[in-house]
C-alpha cells in the first residue's frame, strides 16, 4: 500500500515538473528575445533599450529578478524602494494583527451563539447581513472613523476574517455530539469545565476549519487593501511596480503572494491535523 502511494506521489511530482517546464518553455518562446545592443535603433538607444511596446517578461527574466530580490530581501532605500522581505513583513503584520483580534472576538462569541439557540436566532440576522459585505467597502468608513490608514487596513482584515471563524465556531459548538455533553453532565462538570474539557476539543476541528478559511481570505484581502492604503506592504508593492511599469517585479510579487499564502495555509492545515480526531 505504502509503496503504491509513494509511487503515485513520485509520478505526480514528475508530472508537475513536466507541466511547469512545458508552460515556462512555451512562455519563454512566446516572449520576443531582447535585442542585443548592436541592433538598437536610435529611438531604442534614447529610451535606454526599451521597445516601443512594453512586453510581458520571459520567465528567465522573472527568475533572475527573483534571485536578485531574494538575495537581499530586507534592504531599505527609502519609501519607494524596499526589499520584498520588508514588504511581506508589513503585510503579514497587518494580516496577523487583524486576524488574531478577529479570533479573540469570533471564538468566544461563536461559543456563546453555539451554546444558546436563542442567541443564535438573535444574532443570525446581523451576521447574515454583515457577512456578504466586501471587506473593502468598509474602508472609507474605517478611514474616516479611525483616521489612520495602517489601522484601517488592520480593521479591514479584522472584519473579513471574523465571519468564517464566528460561523464555524457556532456550528461546531452547536453540533457537539449529545453523548459527549451527557458524559460531561453525568460527571458533574461545571459549565466552564464542560466548555474547556469537552466542547472545545470536540468543536476544535470545525473551529480550525473556520480559522483556516479566514486566514486564506485575510491574505486575499490584504493585497487589495494595501493597494488602496498605500505606503508599505506587498499589495502596495504590486501596484507601485505597475506604476513603474516593471512587469518583471509584478510577476515576481504575484508569485511571492502565492507562496506566502500557501505557507500560511500549510501552517493551519498542520494545526488542524493536530486537533483532528477520529470518531
Amino acid at each position, binding site marked *: 500500500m505504502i509503496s503504491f502511494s509513494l509511487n503515485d506521489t513520485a509520478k505526480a511530482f514528475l508530472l508537475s515538473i513536466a507541466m511547469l517546464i512545458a508552460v515556462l518553455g512555451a512562455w519563454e518562446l512566446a516572449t520576443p528575445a531582447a535585442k542585443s545592443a548592436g541592433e538598437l535603433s536610435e529611438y531604442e538607444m534614447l529610451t535606454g533599450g526599451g521597445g516601443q511596446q512594453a512586453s510581458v517578461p520571459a520567465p528567465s527574466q522573472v527568475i533572475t529578478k527573483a534571485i536578485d530580490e531574494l538575495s537581499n530581501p530586507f534592504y531599505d532605500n527609502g519609501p519607494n524602494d524596499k526589499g520584498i522581505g520588508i514588504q511581506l513583513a508589513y503585510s503579514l503584520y497587518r494580516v496577523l494583527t487583524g486576524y488574531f483580534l478577529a479570533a479573540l472576538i469570533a471564538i468566544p462569541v461563536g461559543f456563546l451563539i453555539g451554546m444558546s439557540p436563542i442567541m443564535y436566532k438573535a444574532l443570525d440576522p446581523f451576521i447574515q447581513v454583515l457577512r456578504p459585505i466586501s471587506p473593502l467597502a468598509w474602508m472609507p468608513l474605517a478611514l474616516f472613523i479611525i483616521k489612520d490608514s495602517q489601522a484601517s487596513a488592520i480593521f479591514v482584515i479584522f472584519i473579513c476574517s471574523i465571519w468564517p471563524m464566528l460561523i464555524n465556531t457556532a456550528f461546531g459548538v452547536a453540533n457537539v455530539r449529545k453523548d459527549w455533553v*451527557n458524559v460531561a453532565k*453525568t460527571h458533574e462538570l461545571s459549565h466552564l469545565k464542560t466548555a474547556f474539557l469537552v466542547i472545545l476539543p470536540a468543536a476544535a476541528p470545525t473551529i480550525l476549519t473556520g480559522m483556516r478559511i479566514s486566514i486564506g481570505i485575510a491574505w486575499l484581502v490584504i493585497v487589495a487593501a494595501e493597494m488602496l492604503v498605500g505606503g508599505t506592504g506587498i499589495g502596495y508593492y504590486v501596484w507601485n511596480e505597475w506604476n513603474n511599469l516593471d512587469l518583471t517585479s509584478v510577476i515576481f510579487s504575484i508569485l511571492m503572494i502565492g507562496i506566502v499564502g500557501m505557507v500560511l495555509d500549510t501552517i493551519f492545515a498542520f494545526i488542524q491535523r493536530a486537533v483532528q*480526531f477520529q470518531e
Partner: protein
Amino acid sequence: MSKSFIEVTGLTKRFPAPKGGEPLTVFENANFGIEKGEFVCIIGHSGCGKSTIMNILAGLDQPTEGGIVMGGKEVSGPSLDRGVVFQNYSLLPWLSALKNVMFGVRARHPEWSRSQVYEHSQKYLEMVGLTGGAEHRKPAQLSGGMRQRVSIARAFAIQPQLLLLDEPFGALDALTRGTIQDELTRIWSGSEQTVFMITHDVDEAILLSDRILLMTNGPYARVAESVVVDIPRPRDRAEIIHNPGYYKIRNHLVEFLARRSKELAGNREHSGEPPVTVRPAKDDADDKERQSTSRPKLVSIAS
C-alpha cells in the same frame, strides 16, 4: 414494606403531540424498587421507554410525573453517584483510553494528585484487561469490545452508588459479548455495586441479573413483572444452561416478550400497581404457591 435503596414511584413520561391533539404517553405510573447491591435488568420491546427510564435515573431526562428516590434523596439531575455506560460507548474520541478513565476519576476526586488519579485509573483498566499499550490508544484505534471495556472501567472507577448500563453489549458480536459479560460479572461480584441494565438479550439477562423487570409494549407501557432469577452464583456461561431453572426462566421471558407484552399493551387496568413478582425457577412446592397467588391475576390481565 421497607423502603428499597432506589424507589421509583408513579413514573410517567408523556411527549407532547406534534400538532395539538393527545400527548403521547410512553409509560405511565411505573413503580418498582431496586435493592442495594442488586443487579437488575429491564427487558421490553423498542418504544416501551426503557431508555427513557434509564435517562431519568441518570438525571439526563425529566419525568412528566412521579419521581425517583435513591438512598433517601430525590434524583433531580445528573450526578457522579450514578455512573452511566451508554450503548455507543460515549468515550471522548480525542482522549486515549487511559485519559478517558482519568477524566472520570478526576471529576470524582478533584482533590487527588495526578499520580493518584493515574494509579486508580490504571487499576480499573487492568481490571477490564486493557493493558500493555492498548490503554494509550484512542477509542477509534480500539475494537468495539475494547471500547466498551474502557467505558465499563470508567464507570466502575468513579465508584457510583448506582451503575446504569444502556444496552452495553448491543453493538458487539456474540463472542466478544460473552467475554465482556464474564468480565462484568467478575468485576461486579467483587464490588457490591448496584446495577441497572437495559438489554434485549434474554440469555444475557439471566446470566447477569438477580431480577429481571419486564415491560409491556408502549404506549402506556408499564413494568408488569419482576422475574427473580433463582440460579445460584457464581454463574458460568457454560454451566448455567444445565441448571434446571434456566429454561423455566428463559421460557417465561420469551413467552412474555413474544406474546403477553403485546396483549398487555395499552391495558391501564393495573396501572400504578407494583410489578408482579414471578419466580419461574423456584422449587415445585413454591411454584404451586406462586401459581395459586399470581396466575389468576395474570390470566385476568391477558383476557
